[in-house]
């Protein structure tokens, strides 16, 4: 069975409102995760509040499914909005935050925002921040051979792109006659943990590093979901049809710092949601009351989800040796 060819949806009023809904859901979820960390319902928080303006359009534009006809996602740990935009249930993120045995992504073994969703080609997220650039060439290699319009995309930041695997990705995806359908995404929040990127790299735009490999590239304001949507569509259309790599940088905010290691306090950086809400009001697509209702709906659901998750079982001795080995037939 061949998958339906990908086609970018029309960015109409309905989709603009849906983008807002997912942005709010993502922010509310991340803020719930931070509250869980503060109130003893989880050990460590790391996530992506501030990247919703880029990551929600990315999730909505992903060709979602299993196998090489669909997009492979090699994400890093600030990709919650992408996963939620694709339709995941935020309660599963709460489960991973609390490290419950019911956590579907890692059974309580990994930090929050470390997804693994095979039905959607979301390969396991790791905290290495660089290995995803090395693995993305493998799925893209299989897609190049398979044909179709599926692509492999990889996300990272300015710190991750300082690692050698970033260069591996660009080199391997531009081998003569073996170019790979890789979309290289750089969410630039100006920091690597606590170190400002001004101290670590001299590029005005990280995406310009791709020029050395002849990779088409662009930079977009990741705090603008509409601009991001169009930039992602342009990039995806190129990769899907030309079967060559593309590097897209999105300038984003990091609203709660690196992680709970830096306190997870709110920083005074541009917030992508507020101006987008003003835009929706200006365009008469939503009222302030309707916007507030979206926040209230998601916050109420998350509060209900939390109570459910708190009552769920935690991993124990019986779980430790599970999944050390795969006992079934080979093949993902």
């Amino acid at each position, binding site marked *: 069975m061949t998958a339906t060819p990908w086609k970018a949806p029309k960015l109409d009023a309905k989709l603009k409102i849906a983008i807002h809904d997912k942005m709010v859901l993502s922010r509310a979820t991340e803020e719930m995760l931070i509250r869980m960390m503060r109130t003893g319902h989880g050990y460590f928080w790391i996530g992506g509040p501030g990247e919703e303006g880029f990551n929600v359009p990315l999730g909505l534009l992903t060709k979602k499914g299993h196998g090489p006809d669909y997009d492979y996602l090699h994400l890093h740990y600030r990709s919650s909005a992408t996963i939620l935009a694709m339709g995941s249930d935020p309660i599963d993120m709460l489960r991973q935050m609390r490290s419950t045995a019911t956590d579907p*992504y890692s059974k309580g*073994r990994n930090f929050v925002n470390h997804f693994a969703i095979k039905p959607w080609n979301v390969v396991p997220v790791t905290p290495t921040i660089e290995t995803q650039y090395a693995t993305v060439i493998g799925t893209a290699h299989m897609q190049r051979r398979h044909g179709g319009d599926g692509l492999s995309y990889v996300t990272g930041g300015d710190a991750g792109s300082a690692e050698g695997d970033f260069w591996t990705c660009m080199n391997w995806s531009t081998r003569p006659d073996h170019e790979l359908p890789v979309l290289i995404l750089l969410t630039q929040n100006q920091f690597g943990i606590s170190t400002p990127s001004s101290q670590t790299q001299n590029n005005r735009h990280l995406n310009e590093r791709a020029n050395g490999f002849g990779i088409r590239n662009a930079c977009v304001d990741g705090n603008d979901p509409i601009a991001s949507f169009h930039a992602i569509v342009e990039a995806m259309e190129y990769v899907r049809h030309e079967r060559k790599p593309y590097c897209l940088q999105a300038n984003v905010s990091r609203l709660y710092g690196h992680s709970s290691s830096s306190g997870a306090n709110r920083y005074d950086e541009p917030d992508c949601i507020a101006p987008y809400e003003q835009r929706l009001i200006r365009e008469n697509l939503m009222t302030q009351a309707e916007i507030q209702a979206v926040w209230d709906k998601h916050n109420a659901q998350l509060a209900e989800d939390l109570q459910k998750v708190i009552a769920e079982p935690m991993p124990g001795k019986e779980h430790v040796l599970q999944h050390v080995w795969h006992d079934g037939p080979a*093949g993902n």
Partner: protein
Amino acid sequence: MANLAQAIRLALHYAEENLGVTDIFGEDVGAPLGGVFTATQGLKTAWNTPLDERGIIGMALGIAYAGGKPVAEIQFCDYIYNCIDLLKLCGNVTWSSAGEYHVPMVLMTPVGSGIHGSMYHSHSFESIATHIQGWKIVMPSNPKDAYGLLLSAIAEPNPVLFLAPKALMRQKGAELIPGEPADERTLHNLIDAPLGDRSDWQPNWPPVEDYRVPIGEAKIARAGTALTVVTYGRMLPVSVTAAETLAKEGIEVEVIDLRTIYPFDLPTVKASVEKTGRLLVINEDTEVTNFGEHIIRKVMDEAFYSLEVKPELLAGLDVPGVGLAWGYEQNSVPQQDDVLAAMRRLANERA
């Protein structure tokens, strides 16, 4: 008889045709060279990569994620160290994702000394490898086992590290691989690329058959009652030779070819120690936190009261490398005389 490099090549050919191998790749793995030891000559899915070990491992893991069956190669294990975190990732994917993904990939790399390889073509890797959880680790000592272990590795749904003792690559076997022509010259003419221009050359594969050496199953290479020697890879033929010398002195040594280093065949080792009461583990790796120490510890746990004398490990000296001059290698990696002396001493030690 096929040599070890030819056996690997035959196994990969069989696996391309019958076990779903999609990609065999690494530096110089594809045409025209077909591997620095010629182990990948003529294979239809073999291709050359950039000289980028991290890219090779990442490519393999990505292929496995996407439903393929990769066999990757790091040209010498001495160059694998910049990939440790990727090896860790390959080994933890199944556990960390709670079984959502698994990693059916094989990574081949030549190991050990014996070819005047100097600092970066002589090291062993099995001890470090056994600290990277989630991998199975095999090392053959002869061509037929290489064939059977590699097919088992390729059929395995978990990542397998296939360590090839480089000093044995040109060693011929004592047993035919099922389907292998009996005449060496015939095999050579069928599957060895000619020297010089080989752009029009194609192999003519013999009808080799399915033959597996199960992962986790050791073999008693030589039976005996005076001493148990546990070894693998290049040290196996060295140990058998020493055992044959001692047999002339009336000392019958049992030599176990571990074949799978992890998870290793403890029942076979334990049964042998219970019979002989003496244990000598021999390998080329450096002696500190050597995997042989783990073998000895497991024997202490499981068969302590069967031991008549203290168990011993004969391994490489704990020095930063194997030096090029023969005097370095001869005096830092166990040699034939060292093995013989250690076996004789332990077999004769008063209980």
